[in-house]
Protein backbone atom coordinates (compact mmCIF):
# COMPACT_ATOMS: atom_id res chain seq x y z
CA UNK A 1 0.00 0.00 0.00
CA UNK A 2 2.63 2.47 1.07
CA UNK A 3 4.73 1.26 -1.85
CA UNK A 4 1.94 2.19 -4.20
CA UNK A 5 1.60 5.60 -2.69
CA UNK A 6 5.30 6.19 -3.02
CA UNK A 7 5.25 5.20 -6.67
CA UNK A 8 2.31 7.35 -7.66
CA UNK A 9 4.08 10.72 -7.86
CA UNK A 10 7.09 9.14 -9.58
CA UNK A 11 4.92 7.90 -12.44
CA UNK A 12 3.32 11.28 -12.84
CA UNK A 13 6.73 12.92 -12.66
CA UNK A 14 7.97 10.65 -15.42
CA UNK A 15 5.00 11.54 -17.59
CA UNK A 16 5.51 15.24 -17.05
CA UNK A 17 9.26 14.98 -17.62
CA UNK A 18 8.73 13.29 -20.99
CA UNK A 19 6.18 15.89 -22.05
CA UNK A 20 8.47 18.74 -20.97
CA UNK A 21 11.43 17.26 -22.76
CA UNK A 22 9.57 16.77 -26.03
CA UNK A 23 8.02 20.21 -25.90
CA UNK A 24 11.44 21.70 -25.27
CA UNK A 25 12.89 19.80 -28.22
CA UNK A 26 10.08 21.05 -30.43
CA UNK A 27 10.71 24.57 -29.21
CA UNK A 28 14.36 24.24 -30.27
CA UNK A 29 13.39 22.81 -33.66
CA UNK A 30 10.34 24.84 -34.65
CA UNK A 31 10.45 23.41 -38.17
CA UNK A 32 9.04 20.13 -36.95
CA UNK A 33 5.96 21.95 -35.73
CA UNK A 34 5.66 24.51 -38.50
CA UNK A 35 6.19 22.31 -41.56
CA UNK A 36 3.07 20.17 -41.09
CA UNK A 37 1.17 23.36 -40.36
CA UNK A 38 2.29 24.95 -43.65
CA UNK A 39 1.46 21.70 -45.38
CA UNK A 40 -2.04 21.85 -43.88
CA UNK A 41 -2.52 25.41 -45.11
CA UNK A 42 -1.18 24.59 -48.57
CA UNK A 43 -3.37 21.53 -49.09
CA UNK A 44 -6.34 23.68 -48.13
CA UNK A 45 -5.21 26.22 -50.73
CA UNK A 46 -4.90 23.61 -53.45
CA UNK A 47 -8.58 22.73 -53.51
CA UNK A 48 -10.09 26.12 -54.38
CA UNK A 49 -7.42 26.38 -57.11
CA UNK A 50 -8.39 22.99 -58.49
CA UNK A 51 -12.15 23.11 -57.99
CA UNK A 52 -12.80 26.76 -58.65
CA UNK A 53 -13.69 29.70 -56.42
CA UNK A 54 -17.49 29.29 -56.44
CA UNK A 55 -18.87 29.97 -52.95
CA UNK A 56 -21.43 27.16 -52.89
CA UNK A 57 -18.86 24.63 -54.05
CA UNK A 58 -16.39 25.74 -51.40
CA UNK A 59 -19.02 25.61 -48.67
CA UNK A 60 -19.87 22.11 -49.80
CA UNK A 61 -16.35 20.69 -49.89
CA UNK A 62 -14.95 22.76 -47.00
CA UNK A 63 -15.45 20.33 -44.08
CA UNK A 64 -14.10 17.39 -46.06
CA UNK A 65 -11.08 19.24 -47.38
CA UNK A 66 -10.09 20.64 -44.00
CA UNK A 67 -10.41 17.25 -42.40
CA UNK A 68 -8.45 15.40 -45.07
CA UNK A 69 -5.75 18.07 -44.92
CA UNK A 70 -5.60 17.79 -41.13
CA UNK A 71 -5.31 14.02 -41.38
CA UNK A 72 -2.46 14.22 -43.90
CA UNK A 73 -0.66 16.91 -41.91
CA UNK A 74 -0.86 14.80 -38.75
CA UNK A 75 0.47 11.84 -40.69
CA UNK A 76 3.38 13.94 -41.89
CA UNK A 77 4.30 14.97 -38.37
CA UNK A 78 3.98 11.43 -36.99
CA UNK A 79 6.98 10.28 -38.92
CA UNK A 80 9.31 12.09 -36.54
CA UNK A 81 7.57 10.96 -33.33
CA UNK A 82 10.13 8.31 -32.38
CA UNK A 83 12.78 8.56 -35.11
CA UNK A 84 15.11 11.13 -33.55
CA UNK A 85 14.90 9.39 -30.17
CA UNK A 86 15.67 6.12 -31.91
CA UNK A 87 18.68 7.60 -33.65
CA UNK A 88 20.29 9.22 -30.62
CA UNK A 89 19.56 6.28 -28.34
CA UNK A 90 17.26 8.03 -25.90
CA UNK A 91 14.47 5.69 -26.93
CA UNK A 92 16.43 2.81 -25.45
CA UNK A 93 16.77 4.78 -22.24
CA UNK A 94 13.00 5.08 -22.13
CA UNK A 95 12.69 1.34 -22.68
CA UNK A 96 15.04 0.40 -19.85
CA UNK A 97 13.78 3.04 -17.42
CA UNK A 98 11.90 1.80 -14.34
CA UNK A 99 8.87 3.88 -15.30
CA UNK A 100 6.07 1.95 -17.01
CA UNK A 101 6.61 2.32 -20.72
CA UNK A 102 2.95 2.98 -21.67
CA UNK A 103 2.98 6.05 -19.43
CA UNK A 104 6.15 7.41 -21.02
CA UNK A 105 4.76 6.70 -24.47
CA UNK A 106 1.56 8.47 -23.51
CA UNK A 107 3.70 11.44 -22.52
CA UNK A 108 5.38 11.50 -25.92
CA UNK A 109 2.00 11.24 -27.64
CA UNK A 110 0.57 14.07 -25.56
CA UNK A 111 3.56 16.20 -26.47
CA UNK A 112 3.04 15.30 -30.12
CA UNK A 113 -0.60 16.30 -29.93
CA UNK A 114 0.30 19.61 -28.27
CA UNK A 115 2.76 20.32 -31.09
CA UNK A 116 0.72 19.09 -34.04
CA UNK A 117 -2.97 18.78 -33.10
CA UNK A 118 -3.38 22.00 -31.14
CA UNK A 119 -1.73 24.26 -33.76
CA UNK A 120 -3.88 22.64 -36.46
CA UNK A 121 -7.02 23.35 -34.47
CA UNK A 122 -5.90 26.94 -33.88
CA UNK A 123 -5.13 27.60 -37.54
CA UNK A 124 -8.21 25.85 -38.90
CA UNK A 125 -10.70 28.74 -38.34
CA UNK A 126 -8.68 30.98 -40.67
CA UNK A 127 -8.79 28.40 -43.43
CA UNK A 128 -12.41 27.52 -42.71
CA UNK A 129 -13.34 31.18 -43.13
CA UNK A 130 -11.83 31.17 -46.63
CA UNK A 131 -14.19 28.28 -47.39
CA UNK A 132 -17.12 30.50 -46.34
CA UNK A 133 -17.88 28.39 -43.33
CA UNK A 134 -20.36 30.06 -40.92
CA UNK A 135 -19.10 30.91 -37.44
CA UNK A 136 -21.23 28.34 -35.64
CA UNK A 137 -19.98 25.60 -37.90
CA UNK A 138 -16.39 26.69 -37.33
CA UNK A 139 -16.91 26.01 -33.63
CA UNK A 140 -18.17 22.51 -34.37
CA UNK A 141 -15.24 21.96 -36.71
CA UNK A 142 -12.73 23.03 -34.08
CA UNK A 143 -14.34 20.71 -31.57
CA UNK A 144 -14.25 17.72 -33.94
CA UNK A 145 -10.68 18.53 -34.96
CA UNK A 146 -9.64 18.72 -31.30
CA UNK A 147 -11.10 15.30 -30.55
CA UNK A 148 -10.02 13.94 -33.93
CA UNK A 149 -6.38 14.98 -33.64
CA UNK A 150 -6.25 13.32 -30.22
CA UNK A 151 -7.42 10.10 -31.88
CA UNK A 152 -4.99 10.51 -34.76
CA UNK A 153 -1.98 11.19 -32.53
CA UNK A 154 -2.76 8.13 -30.42
CA UNK A 155 -3.44 5.85 -33.39
CA UNK A 156 -0.48 7.23 -35.25
CA UNK A 157 1.85 6.56 -32.34
CA UNK A 158 1.18 2.83 -32.84
CA UNK A 159 2.15 3.04 -36.49
CA UNK A 160 5.16 5.23 -35.75
CA UNK A 161 6.34 2.73 -33.14
CA UNK A 162 5.93 -0.20 -35.54
CA UNK A 163 7.94 1.49 -38.28
CA UNK A 164 10.56 3.24 -36.15
CA UNK A 165 13.57 1.14 -37.05
CA UNK A 166 12.72 0.85 -40.73
CA UNK A 167 14.10 3.22 -43.29
CA UNK A 168 11.00 3.10 -45.42
CA UNK A 169 9.80 6.62 -44.64
CA UNK A 170 6.30 7.97 -44.64
CA UNK A 171 4.83 5.70 -47.32
CA UNK A 172 4.69 2.61 -45.12
CA UNK A 173 3.44 4.61 -42.16
CA UNK A 174 0.62 6.03 -44.29
CA UNK A 175 -0.29 2.58 -45.51
CA UNK A 176 -0.55 1.36 -41.91
CA UNK A 177 -2.32 4.34 -40.39
CA UNK A 178 -4.70 5.59 -43.06
CA UNK A 179 -7.08 2.60 -43.00
CA UNK A 180 -7.16 2.80 -39.21
CA UNK A 181 -7.78 6.53 -39.34
CA UNK A 182 -10.66 6.36 -41.80
CA UNK A 183 -13.41 6.11 -39.16
CA UNK A 184 -12.04 9.24 -37.46
CA UNK A 185 -12.09 11.16 -40.74
CA UNK A 186 -15.53 9.88 -41.57
CA UNK A 187 -16.99 10.86 -38.20
CA UNK A 188 -15.21 14.20 -38.06
CA UNK A 189 -15.84 15.50 -41.56
CA UNK A 190 -19.44 14.32 -41.70
CA UNK A 191 -20.24 15.86 -38.33
CA UNK A 192 -19.07 19.22 -39.65
CA UNK A 193 -21.09 18.70 -42.84
CA UNK A 194 -24.18 17.94 -40.80
CA UNK A 195 -23.65 21.06 -38.71
CA UNK A 196 -23.29 23.07 -41.93
CA UNK A 197 -26.63 21.68 -43.12
CA UNK A 198 -28.28 22.64 -39.81
CA UNK A 199 -28.94 19.03 -38.94
CA UNK A 200 -28.41 17.17 -35.71
CA UNK A 201 -24.70 16.46 -35.41
CA UNK A 202 -24.20 15.46 -31.78
CA UNK A 203 -23.92 11.73 -32.61
CA UNK A 204 -20.65 12.33 -34.40
CA UNK A 205 -19.21 14.35 -31.53
CA UNK A 206 -20.11 11.70 -28.98
CA UNK A 207 -18.71 8.96 -31.20
CA UNK A 208 -15.47 10.88 -31.71
CA UNK A 209 -15.25 11.47 -27.97
CA UNK A 210 -15.79 7.78 -27.31
CA UNK A 211 -13.12 6.93 -29.87
CA UNK A 212 -10.71 9.36 -28.21
CA UNK A 213 -11.33 7.89 -24.75
CA UNK A 214 -10.92 4.34 -26.03
CA UNK A 215 -7.75 5.24 -27.91
CA UNK A 216 -6.41 7.08 -24.87
CA UNK A 217 -6.82 4.04 -22.67
CA UNK A 218 -5.73 1.33 -25.12
CA UNK A 219 -3.26 2.71 -27.61
CA UNK A 220 -0.36 3.45 -25.19
CA UNK A 221 -0.16 -0.28 -24.46
CA UNK A 222 -0.09 -1.15 -28.15
CA UNK A 223 2.50 1.55 -28.80
CA UNK A 224 4.66 0.35 -25.92
CA UNK A 225 4.47 -3.25 -27.18
CA UNK A 226 5.33 -2.11 -30.69
CA UNK A 227 8.31 -0.09 -29.44
CA UNK A 228 9.67 -3.07 -27.55
CA UNK A 229 9.34 -5.19 -30.69
CA UNK A 230 11.00 -2.59 -32.89
CA UNK A 231 13.93 -2.27 -30.50
CA UNK A 232 14.71 -5.92 -29.96
Amino acid at each position, binding site marked *: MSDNEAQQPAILAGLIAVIRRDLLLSWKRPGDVLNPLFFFAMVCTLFPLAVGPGATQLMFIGPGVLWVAALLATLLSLNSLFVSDFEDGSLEQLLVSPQPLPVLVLGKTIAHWLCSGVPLVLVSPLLAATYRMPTGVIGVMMLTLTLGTVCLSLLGS*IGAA*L*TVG*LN*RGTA*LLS*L*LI*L*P*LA*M*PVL*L*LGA*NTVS*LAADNEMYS*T*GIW*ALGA*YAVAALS*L*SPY*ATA*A*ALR*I*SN*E
Partner: protein
Amino acid sequence: MWTFFHRLASPPHIYRLAAIFAPWLLFPGLVLVAYGTYGGVFVAPTDYQQGDAFRIIYVHVPAAYLSMMAYMIMAVGGGIGLIWRIKLAHTVGAAAAPLGAAFTLLALLTGSIWGRPMWGTWWEWGDPRLTSELILLFLYFGYMALRAAIDDTLKADKACAVLALVGVVNVVIVHYSVEWWSSLHQGQTLLRKGGPAMDPAMLYPLLAMILGFTLIFGALLLRRVRTEVLYRERRTRWVREMIMAGQGGK
Protein backbone atom coordinates in the same frame (compact mmCIF):
# COMPACT_ATOMS: atom_id res chain seq x y z
CA MET B 1 0.37 -31.07 -22.10
CA TRP B 2 2.70 -28.25 -23.10
CA THR B 3 5.24 -30.66 -24.52
CA PHE B 4 2.45 -32.19 -26.56
CA PHE B 5 1.58 -28.80 -27.97
CA HIS B 6 5.17 -28.01 -28.71
CA ARG B 7 5.73 -31.27 -30.49
CA LEU B 8 2.52 -30.76 -32.41
CA ALA B 9 3.61 -27.30 -33.44
CA SER B 10 7.16 -28.23 -34.33
CA PRO B 11 7.91 -27.25 -37.93
CA PRO B 12 8.72 -30.72 -39.38
CA HIS B 13 5.60 -32.13 -37.81
CA ILE B 14 3.39 -29.36 -39.10
CA TYR B 15 4.98 -29.65 -42.51
CA ARG B 16 3.96 -33.31 -42.68
CA LEU B 17 0.55 -32.84 -41.05
CA ALA B 18 -0.38 -30.04 -43.45
CA ALA B 19 0.42 -32.25 -46.40
CA ILE B 20 -1.77 -35.01 -45.01
CA PHE B 21 -4.74 -32.79 -44.19
CA ALA B 22 -4.77 -30.54 -47.24
CA PRO B 23 -6.34 -33.05 -49.68
CA TRP B 24 -9.00 -33.96 -47.11
CA LEU B 25 -10.10 -30.36 -47.16
CA LEU B 26 -9.53 -29.69 -50.82
CA PHE B 27 -11.51 -32.51 -52.43
CA PRO B 28 -14.69 -32.28 -50.32
CA GLY B 29 -14.43 -28.53 -50.87
CA LEU B 30 -14.27 -28.96 -54.63
CA VAL B 31 -17.23 -31.36 -54.57
CA LEU B 32 -19.29 -28.91 -52.53
CA VAL B 33 -18.39 -26.01 -54.81
CA ALA B 34 -19.27 -28.10 -57.85
CA TYR B 35 -22.66 -28.91 -56.33
CA GLY B 36 -23.14 -25.30 -55.28
CA THR B 37 -22.27 -24.01 -58.74
CA TYR B 38 -24.67 -26.43 -60.40
CA GLY B 39 -27.41 -25.74 -57.88
CA GLY B 40 -26.83 -22.03 -57.95
CA VAL B 41 -26.67 -21.57 -61.69
CA PHE B 42 -29.12 -24.18 -63.00
CA VAL B 43 -31.46 -25.27 -60.22
CA ALA B 44 -32.14 -22.20 -58.09
CA PRO B 45 -35.18 -20.28 -59.31
CA THR B 46 -34.82 -16.79 -60.70
CA ASP B 47 -35.24 -14.09 -58.08
CA TYR B 48 -38.48 -12.21 -58.57
CA GLN B 49 -36.80 -8.86 -57.93
CA GLN B 50 -33.25 -9.25 -59.12
CA GLY B 51 -33.65 -11.70 -61.99
CA ASP B 52 -30.62 -13.81 -62.66
CA ALA B 53 -28.22 -11.17 -61.34
CA PHE B 54 -28.64 -12.44 -57.80
CA ARG B 55 -26.77 -15.64 -58.73
CA ILE B 56 -23.49 -13.87 -58.06
CA ILE B 57 -24.16 -14.28 -54.33
CA TYR B 58 -22.92 -17.83 -54.73
CA VAL B 59 -19.43 -16.38 -55.09
CA HIS B 60 -19.90 -13.06 -53.35
CA VAL B 61 -21.18 -14.22 -49.97
CA PRO B 62 -18.53 -16.93 -49.38
CA ALA B 63 -15.77 -14.55 -50.49
CA ALA B 64 -16.99 -11.77 -48.21
CA TYR B 65 -17.30 -14.17 -45.30
CA LEU B 66 -13.80 -15.55 -45.85
CA SER B 67 -12.33 -12.06 -46.18
CA MET B 68 -13.34 -11.44 -42.57
CA MET B 69 -12.53 -14.95 -41.41
CA ALA B 70 -8.97 -14.64 -42.71
CA TYR B 71 -8.52 -11.39 -40.83
CA MET B 72 -9.74 -13.05 -37.65
CA ILE B 73 -7.24 -15.86 -38.23
CA MET B 74 -4.48 -13.29 -38.60
CA ALA B 75 -5.49 -11.48 -35.44
CA VAL B 76 -6.10 -14.58 -33.31
CA GLY B 77 -2.89 -16.15 -34.65
CA GLY B 78 -1.02 -12.97 -33.82
CA GLY B 79 -2.51 -12.91 -30.32
CA ILE B 80 -1.62 -16.55 -29.65
CA GLY B 81 1.85 -15.96 -31.04
CA LEU B 82 2.42 -12.93 -28.83
CA ILE B 83 1.00 -14.41 -25.64
CA TRP B 84 2.19 -18.03 -25.74
CA ARG B 85 5.11 -17.43 -28.10
CA ILE B 86 4.05 -20.18 -30.45
CA LYS B 87 5.82 -19.49 -33.71
CA LEU B 88 3.36 -21.60 -35.67
CA ALA B 89 0.56 -19.15 -34.89
CA HIS B 90 2.56 -16.35 -36.50
CA THR B 91 3.26 -18.57 -39.47
CA VAL B 92 -0.44 -19.22 -39.94
CA GLY B 93 -1.16 -15.50 -39.71
CA ALA B 94 1.48 -14.72 -42.29
CA ALA B 95 0.09 -17.40 -44.58
CA ALA B 96 -3.49 -16.18 -44.17
CA ALA B 97 -2.84 -12.55 -45.13
CA PRO B 98 -2.48 -12.84 -48.94
CA LEU B 99 -5.38 -15.31 -49.06
CA GLY B 100 -7.55 -12.93 -47.10
CA ALA B 101 -6.59 -10.06 -49.37
CA ALA B 102 -7.44 -12.19 -52.41
CA PHE B 103 -10.88 -13.07 -51.04
CA THR B 104 -11.48 -9.44 -50.11
CA LEU B 105 -10.64 -8.44 -53.66
CA LEU B 106 -12.95 -11.15 -54.97
CA ALA B 107 -15.76 -9.95 -52.70
CA LEU B 108 -15.23 -6.38 -53.90
CA LEU B 109 -15.15 -7.34 -57.55
CA THR B 110 -18.25 -9.54 -57.37
CA GLY B 111 -20.01 -6.93 -55.26
CA SER B 112 -19.24 -4.28 -57.85
CA ILE B 113 -20.35 -6.53 -60.74
CA TRP B 114 -23.54 -7.24 -58.81
CA GLY B 115 -24.00 -3.56 -58.19
CA ARG B 116 -23.97 -2.77 -61.89
CA PRO B 117 -27.44 -4.24 -62.68
CA MET B 118 -28.84 -3.58 -59.18
CA TRP B 119 -27.79 0.01 -58.60
CA GLY B 120 -26.86 0.96 -62.17
CA THR B 121 -23.31 1.72 -61.07
CA TRP B 122 -20.13 -0.22 -60.54
CA TRP B 123 -19.44 1.40 -57.25
CA GLU B 124 -21.85 2.74 -54.68
CA TRP B 125 -20.24 4.67 -51.85
CA GLY B 126 -23.57 4.67 -50.08
CA ASP B 127 -23.42 0.96 -49.38
CA PRO B 128 -21.74 0.50 -46.01
CA ARG B 129 -20.55 -3.03 -46.66
CA LEU B 130 -18.78 -2.15 -49.88
CA THR B 131 -16.95 0.68 -48.14
CA SER B 132 -15.93 -1.30 -45.08
CA GLU B 133 -14.77 -4.14 -47.30
CA LEU B 134 -12.55 -1.68 -49.16
CA ILE B 135 -11.06 -0.48 -45.89
CA LEU B 136 -10.50 -4.12 -44.94
CA LEU B 137 -8.54 -4.56 -48.18
CA PHE B 138 -6.35 -1.60 -47.23
CA LEU B 139 -5.78 -3.14 -43.79
CA TYR B 140 -4.54 -6.31 -45.53
CA PHE B 141 -2.23 -4.23 -47.71
CA GLY B 142 -0.84 -2.49 -44.65
CA TYR B 143 -0.24 -5.82 -42.91
CA MET B 144 1.56 -7.29 -45.90
CA ALA B 145 3.57 -4.12 -46.47
CA LEU B 146 4.75 -4.10 -42.85
CA ARG B 147 5.74 -7.75 -43.10
CA ALA B 148 7.62 -7.10 -46.31
CA ALA B 149 9.42 -4.10 -44.82
CA ILE B 150 10.93 -5.95 -41.84
CA ASP B 151 13.75 -8.30 -42.74
CA ASP B 152 13.95 -10.14 -39.44
CA THR B 153 11.14 -12.72 -39.49
CA LEU B 154 10.74 -12.89 -35.70
CA LYS B 155 10.40 -9.14 -35.47
CA ALA B 156 8.05 -9.00 -38.45
CA ASP B 157 5.85 -11.63 -36.82
CA LYS B 158 5.44 -9.66 -33.62
CA ALA B 159 5.01 -6.30 -35.29
CA CYS B 160 2.39 -7.70 -37.64
CA ALA B 161 0.61 -9.38 -34.73
CA VAL B 162 0.29 -6.01 -32.96
CA LEU B 163 -0.98 -4.42 -36.16
CA ALA B 164 -3.52 -7.19 -36.75
CA LEU B 165 -4.81 -6.90 -33.19
CA VAL B 166 -5.13 -3.13 -33.44
CA GLY B 167 -6.83 -3.62 -36.79
CA VAL B 168 -9.36 -6.09 -35.49
CA VAL B 169 -10.56 -3.62 -32.88
CA ASN B 170 -10.78 -1.06 -35.61
CA VAL B 171 -12.72 -3.25 -38.02
CA VAL B 172 -15.67 -3.09 -35.63
CA ILE B 173 -15.42 0.70 -35.43
CA VAL B 174 -15.10 0.92 -39.20
CA HIS B 175 -18.22 -1.16 -39.58
CA TYR B 176 -20.38 0.98 -37.32
CA SER B 177 -19.02 4.34 -38.43
CA VAL B 178 -19.50 3.48 -42.10
CA GLU B 179 -23.02 2.35 -41.35
CA TRP B 180 -23.75 5.62 -39.58
CA TRP B 181 -22.18 7.57 -42.42
CA SER B 182 -24.11 5.85 -45.19
CA SER B 183 -27.36 6.25 -43.30
CA LEU B 184 -26.75 10.01 -43.52
CA HIS B 185 -26.42 9.92 -47.25
CA GLN B 186 -29.38 7.82 -48.19
CA GLY B 187 -32.73 6.90 -46.75
CA GLN B 188 -32.42 3.17 -46.64
CA THR B 189 -29.94 0.54 -47.60
CA LEU B 190 -30.37 -0.61 -51.15
CA LEU B 191 -30.16 -4.25 -50.28
CA ARG B 192 -32.54 -5.76 -47.82
CA LYS B 193 -30.87 -6.19 -44.49
CA GLY B 194 -32.02 -9.55 -43.21
CA GLY B 195 -33.37 -10.59 -46.55
CA PRO B 196 -36.62 -12.47 -47.03
CA ALA B 197 -36.85 -16.16 -46.32
CA MET B 198 -34.91 -17.88 -49.06
CA ASP B 199 -36.23 -20.63 -51.25
CA PRO B 200 -34.48 -23.87 -50.14
CA ALA B 201 -33.44 -24.40 -53.76
CA MET B 202 -31.55 -21.10 -53.47
CA LEU B 203 -30.35 -21.59 -49.92
CA TYR B 204 -28.78 -25.06 -50.05
CA PRO B 205 -26.40 -24.28 -52.92
CA LEU B 206 -25.38 -21.13 -51.04
CA LEU B 207 -24.64 -23.07 -47.85
CA ALA B 208 -22.73 -25.62 -49.93
CA MET B 209 -20.73 -22.81 -51.51
CA ILE B 210 -19.92 -21.24 -48.14
CA LEU B 211 -18.76 -24.54 -46.70
CA GLY B 212 -16.94 -25.49 -49.90
CA PHE B 213 -15.14 -22.16 -50.11
CA THR B 214 -14.14 -22.50 -46.45
CA LEU B 215 -12.71 -25.98 -47.01
CA ILE B 216 -10.79 -24.84 -50.09
CA PHE B 217 -9.57 -21.85 -48.12
CA GLY B 218 -8.39 -24.24 -45.43
CA ALA B 219 -6.57 -26.36 -47.99
CA LEU B 220 -4.90 -23.32 -49.53
CA LEU B 221 -3.99 -22.06 -46.08
CA LEU B 222 -2.34 -25.38 -45.21
CA ARG B 223 -0.50 -25.27 -48.52
CA ARG B 224 0.74 -21.76 -47.76
CA VAL B 225 1.65 -22.72 -44.20
CA ARG B 226 3.82 -25.52 -45.62
CA THR B 227 5.59 -23.13 -47.94
CA GLU B 228 6.01 -20.61 -45.16
CA VAL B 229 7.40 -23.26 -42.78
CA LEU B 230 9.80 -24.47 -45.43
CA TYR B 231 10.98 -20.94 -46.14
CA ARG B 232 11.45 -20.09 -42.48
CA GLU B 233 13.27 -23.35 -41.76
CA ARG B 234 15.37 -23.23 -44.89
CA ARG B 235 18.62 -23.26 -42.95
CA THR B 236 17.75 -26.12 -40.60
CA ARG B 237 18.91 -29.68 -40.73
CA TRP B 238 15.58 -31.38 -41.22
CA VAL B 239 14.89 -29.40 -44.37
CA ARG B 240 18.32 -30.19 -45.76
CA GLU B 241 17.97 -33.86 -44.90
CA MET B 242 14.53 -34.01 -46.46
CA ILE B 243 15.78 -32.45 -49.66
CA MET B 244 18.85 -34.69 -49.70
CA ALA B 245 16.55 -37.69 -49.33
CA GLY B 246 14.70 -36.46 -52.39
CA GLN B 247 11.39 -35.99 -50.61
CA GLY B 248 10.97 -32.35 -51.44
CA GLY B 249 7.52 -32.90 -52.83
CA LYS B 250 5.98 -34.84 -49.97
